[in-house]
């Protein structure tokens, strides 16, 4: 342990003596304090707070992420290039301990920097909220500065797949389809089935049943929030669409009916519900009446959601920072792994390149969706084919799967929408991001570093 701590202490010394710690602290605090002065919002306290949270936490993550990658690549690669590692490696410390000590050093630095900047963001939000009028404070505390649990209608994926196959077989019996086009036809049928699950035609009512689960018991007597979003194929002159919401079941639960609400498409809307609208089993029944002349489409994944109070913002904010810290741990491991076998500039380039890939998964996703990397022929309406598809598409699938392990958590989005980040989520983030992905990077880095000849580099001091 003494050896590990010695290497950790050395990383701290380097960060302090080279003034990296001071510079990053100033940048982070500058971003936290300066950004709210520059950004534009929708004029409401809620909108402003959401934007401040999104921008400041986003900037902190980006700055700290870049700094972590740079430091991780530099601290190991430069020690090797400048030959200090030749002296350290001749002492009774295993190479993996040197590696781990460096990682612990970077992570302890990150911990302090994240805690400092996070505390600053939290303090600023609370301070600004306390200066708002009482009604706005109430809105803020019930919609943003809160930790709200979420419940959605049950997943219909299996049902959609089953229905898709039924319809496909039915059509195949009527029309002959070329083997090469079968997949394309299946995709089109699936989209039709999905649309049926999402669409509310003009003059129709749609019903969703949302299971509140074990949370239902604690939610007796507490108001709920309905969060909705819909898309339309056509617009209106006013830009909004009317709609009536009916919540509850006659003779079983209390009933609540909204006014005719005028809602914009492609935007999230939060509608406050009265307490105790769900039945004894914790099922909340929500009906929507579409009085418009156009169909409205409520997306399956985010079209409708019920939010309920679950905890305090402070603890939620801490858990959110916890997930960001997990990301930093992964970045530090990636940087150190690259520096274990590459020179500093190359390691930094590789690590940043990997980061760029993570942020640009759209191309890979669409290639996987189309099943080819070849271009789509718009004139013939057919998709292309490439011999590389055999290798590239499975590779893209694997990369996307790995990336999704780290990207499936969205603490900034959750915090800015006042949604709860549970301990379970934090635990999963730690397991997937730190233990699994970080562990793979660490194992690779430690192995390479242990096997590496350290005396081939000539000193650059």
């Amino acid at each position, binding site marked *: 342990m003494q050896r590990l701590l*010695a290497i950790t202490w*050395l990383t701290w010394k380097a960060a302090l003596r080279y003034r990296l710690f001071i510079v990053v602290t100033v940048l982070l605090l500058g971003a936290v304090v300066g950004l709210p002065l520059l950004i534009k919002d929708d004029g409401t306290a809620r909108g402003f707070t959401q934007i401040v949270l999104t921008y400041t936490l986003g900037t902190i993550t980006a700055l700290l992420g870049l700094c972590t990658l740079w430091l991780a690549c530099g601290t190991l690669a430069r020690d090797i290039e400048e030959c200090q590692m030749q*002296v350290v*490696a*001749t*002492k*009774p*410390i295993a190479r993996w301990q040197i590696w781990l000590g460096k990682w612990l050093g970077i992570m302890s630095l990150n911990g302090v920097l994240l805690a400092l900047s996070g505390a600053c963001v939290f303090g600023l939000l609370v301070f600004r909220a306390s200066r708002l009028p009482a009604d706005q404070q109430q809105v803020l505390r019930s919609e943003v500065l809160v930790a709200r649990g979420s419940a959605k209608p049950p997943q219909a994926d299996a049902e959609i797949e089953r229905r898709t196959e039924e319809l496909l077989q039915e059509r195949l019996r009527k029309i002959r389809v070329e083997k090469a086009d079968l997949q394309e036809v299946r995709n089109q049928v699936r989209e039709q089935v999905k649309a049926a699950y999402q669409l509310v035609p003009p003059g129709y009512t749609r019903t969703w049943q949302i299971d509140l689960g074990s949370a239902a018991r604690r939610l007796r007597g507490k108001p709920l929030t309905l969060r909705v979003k819909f898309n339309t194929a056509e617009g209106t002159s006013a830009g909004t669409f009317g709609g009536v919401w009916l919540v509850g079941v006659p003779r079983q639960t209390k009933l609540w009916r909204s006014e005719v609400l005028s809602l914009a498409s492609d935007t999230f809307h939060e509608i406050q519900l009265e307490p105790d609208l769900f039945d004894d089993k914790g099922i909340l029944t929500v009906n929507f009446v579409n009085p418009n002349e156009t169909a409205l489409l409520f997306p399956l994944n985010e079209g409708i959601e019920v939010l309920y109070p679950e905890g305090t913002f402070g603890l939620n904010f801490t858990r959110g920072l916890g997930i960001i810290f997990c990301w930093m741990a992964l970045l530090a491991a990636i940087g150190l792994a690259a520096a274990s076998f590459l020179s500093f500039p190359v390691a930094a380039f590789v690590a940043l390149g990997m980061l760029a890939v993570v942020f640009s998964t759209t191309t890979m996703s669409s290639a996987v969706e189309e099943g080819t990397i070849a271009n789509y022929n718009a004139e013939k309406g057919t998709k292309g084919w490439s011999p590389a598809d055999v290798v590239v598409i499975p590779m893209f699938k694997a990369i996307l799967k790995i990336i999704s392990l780290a990207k499936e958590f969205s603490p900034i989005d959750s915090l800015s929408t006042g949604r709860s980040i549970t301990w379970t989520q934090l635990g999963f983030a730690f397991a997937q991001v730190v233990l699994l992905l970080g562990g793979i990077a660490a194992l690779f880095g430690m192995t390479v570093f242990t096997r590496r000849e350290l005396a*081939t580099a000539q*000193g650059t001091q």
Partner: protein
Amino acid sequence: MPTNVTELIPHSALRDPQTNGEVVVSVRGLTKVFKDFWGRPKARAIDNVDFDVRRGEVFGLLGPNGSGKSTTVKLILGLLHPTKGHLEVFGHSPRHVATKSRIGYLPEESYLYRYLNSRETLQFFGNLFELPKEDRQKRSEQLLEMVGLSQVHLRAVGEFSKGMQRRIGLAQALINDPDLVILDEPTSGLDPIGCREVKDLIIALARRGKTVILSSHLLSDVEDVCDRVVIYYGGKIQAQGPLRDLLASPDTIQITTPALPRQTMERVLELIRRDVAEDKVKIDTPTQNLESYFLEIVQRARRAAAETSGATSGARVAAYLRGDAEQGAAGEKILERLAAPQPSPRPANAPAVPVAEAVDEKKLAALAQPGALPKPAPTPSREAEKPVELDQANEKLASLLNKPK
């Protein structure tokens, strides 16, 4: 009249290596080929090398630049992997982590963290050896004192001169009181005082049964302290063995005496000329070497309390490096000898140095026997040479520099 600076007595003349047969480093058929990115052989740095280093030896790796000395050192330390051959340190692979707690290493350049000061540097390396806090602090103090950096312990190592960096490098190599000390060009960048101190330190370590591997291309360094050497050229060992064997010249002898009256001198010469042709007899007055003279000047300046912003001359060898058992013995106070008004007494366990000894009648008799020449003395001791008066030396130096005295 002798000077008040101790002459450096060749290590091999002072002591018989305290080797007990335990092999500390064993090298068999060691070959190292550096390869390029594509795995093609680029340079054969070491080619089929064999040697053993035994406990208590001061072992020299000698050779010109690029001959493979440093590569050998790095292979012994596990920083490079052999292409072929077998290498063991204390009976283990060089990459065995626990074995490294018995090794101290001074690299050929100062590969230390430039942003740490000298005290932090020693604390850091002490932590890597898991030394308890008290030991770490005590040893750091003693080492800083020993290498003459205690007054500048708060300055960053990056600000140090090359010599000062070598000194702190040497201190870190000794923080664990190692059983095997590997010194790669230890006197490179050091001033004459520093060189002298390093050599004295090596002798002190060897006297405690420590094993020292010294890699150097400076012949005087190796000659002064090494028991055995290997001489490299082109990655191959060209010669190896005890220094006294390698340097012995069995066809000549040297007799050193105090100044003799002319008549005595003539009688001696007459005796010698009976057996040896006149052109083969050489009579010379030994002069003090420049190292001794330089050290004397510095000693005088120090006595006058001149201030310096650089490293001061090191004090005595750190107590823990001297070993408790040897404390109090005059021989261990190596550095103190610099300040001694008389040549320091020889170490208790060292054999008699042939300096100002009474003439050994037996040896003379043996010399008189044709064909019965005894084995020559290892290396003639400069202590036997008649020291030149300081005034004379000053005069010489002044005339060399073309300056008034």
